[in-house]
């Protein structure tokens, strides 16, 4: 910090440069952590997975608020996009290649979901320009608001089997085998139903009326 102040006296340009370097260093320090959380989550570590999603949500919220502002949209919609990407990160996590960096993978999903959002709300036909994946980690924002996603409405709209599976496994935290025993479904049927329920959650966000 003292170094930055010292440079500040020499001129604004150098100060910005230093700040950018500091940001880059921040990116480098956050990537290994996120990646090891992701890998642990892929091995089935729920706590690591939760921490990953929490950290990503903060970054994503900042990123989407900035993007929405750039396209002249209400930053309130950021929460919907954050949740849409979190669901995608979770349900598509098998598409992450463990030998690659994690941040560009998340950034690619976020950018894809944002251009999809622009297309369905017919704001713009122009593509979202590709930036460095660091655009994602440059922001963070932990101020949550309620999203448009209504869990009760979702649960009412899906098939009873799917509802039961989501209820047992995801809301009450029963293990898959316990849920299978209690509902009389096979374990693989429970897994399929849970997966289907999470997909329905994602479609619910994309199909809702724009506010």
């Amino acid at each position, binding site marked *: 910090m003292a170094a930055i102040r010292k440079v500040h006296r020499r001129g604004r340009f150098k100060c910005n440069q230093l700040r950018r370097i500091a940001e880059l260093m921040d990116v480098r320090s956050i990537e290994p952590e996120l990646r090891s959380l992701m890998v642990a989550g*892929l091995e089935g570590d*729920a706590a690591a997975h939760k921490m990953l999603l929490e950290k990503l*949500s903060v970054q994503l*919220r900042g990123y989407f608020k900035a993007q929405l502002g750039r396209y002249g949209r209400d930053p309130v919609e950021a929460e919907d996009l954050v949740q849409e990407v*979190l669901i995608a990160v979770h349900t598509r996590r098998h598409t*992450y290649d463990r030998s690659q960096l994690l941040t560009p993978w998340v950034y690619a999903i976020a950018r894809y979901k944002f251009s999809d959002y622009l297309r369905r709300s017919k704001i713009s036909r122009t593509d979202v320009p590709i930036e460095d994946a660091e655009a994602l980690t440059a922001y963070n924002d932990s101020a949550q608001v309620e999203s448009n996603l209504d869990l009760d409405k979702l649960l009412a709209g899906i098939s009873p089997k799917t509802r039961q599976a989501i209820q047992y496994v995801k809301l009450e935290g029963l293990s898959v085998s316990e849920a299978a025993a209690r509902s009389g479904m096979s374990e693989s049927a429970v897994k399929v139903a849970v997966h289907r329920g999470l997909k329905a959650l994602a479609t619910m966000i994309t199909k809702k009326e724009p506010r």
Partner: protein
Amino acid sequence: MRTDKLIDILSTNVEPVKPGLLEKTLAWAVVVGGATAFCLMLATVGARREILNGSELGFFALKIGWTLSLILIGYLLLTKLIRPVQTGRKLVAVISFSFLAVAVAGAVALIGSADRRIIILGTQWVTCALCIPLFATVPFILLIWALRKGAPTNLKRTGAIAGLVAGALGAMAYAFHCPDDFLPFLAIWYGGLIALCAFIGAKFGPRLLRW
């Protein structure tokens, strides 16, 4: 819903993810699609009966070799495109180069020949033009199904390569019937029809692959 609640839901009972699932699904789609195309060829036009001698055998090997190389490169490309981030530009260049090489070889053979009609139209160009897209249909459906299990972000290119692989599988199946052993015929009909399949794939990719 608040994002905290969503993260709780997503990180309750996290299942471990096995690596290599996407590659297996894609390979399965290619193999089953190819087998279906081959059976369809046997059931409709049937395989060539005559025993192939020197140059005929060479042409048969060329048709199979070229389509097979397109299938293999296309498969490799799809294993990249099925994930966010990876674009596989180099492999797209390899495919374009291989098309160019076949086109040049066809043109050279055309210049050096007196009887152009037969080497362009062959004896069965109508059958060829109908069969290749027909045989490509099932592989295309299977490939789209496999790709939807992933998270492609460049939908146009992914659709195009799915079309290309399906077209190449259709062309390879047709090669077992095809009695026309001329380079210009190969370049125009095989090359053109595979390119047409790729074009159709690119056209429908964004609609079929959206997630």
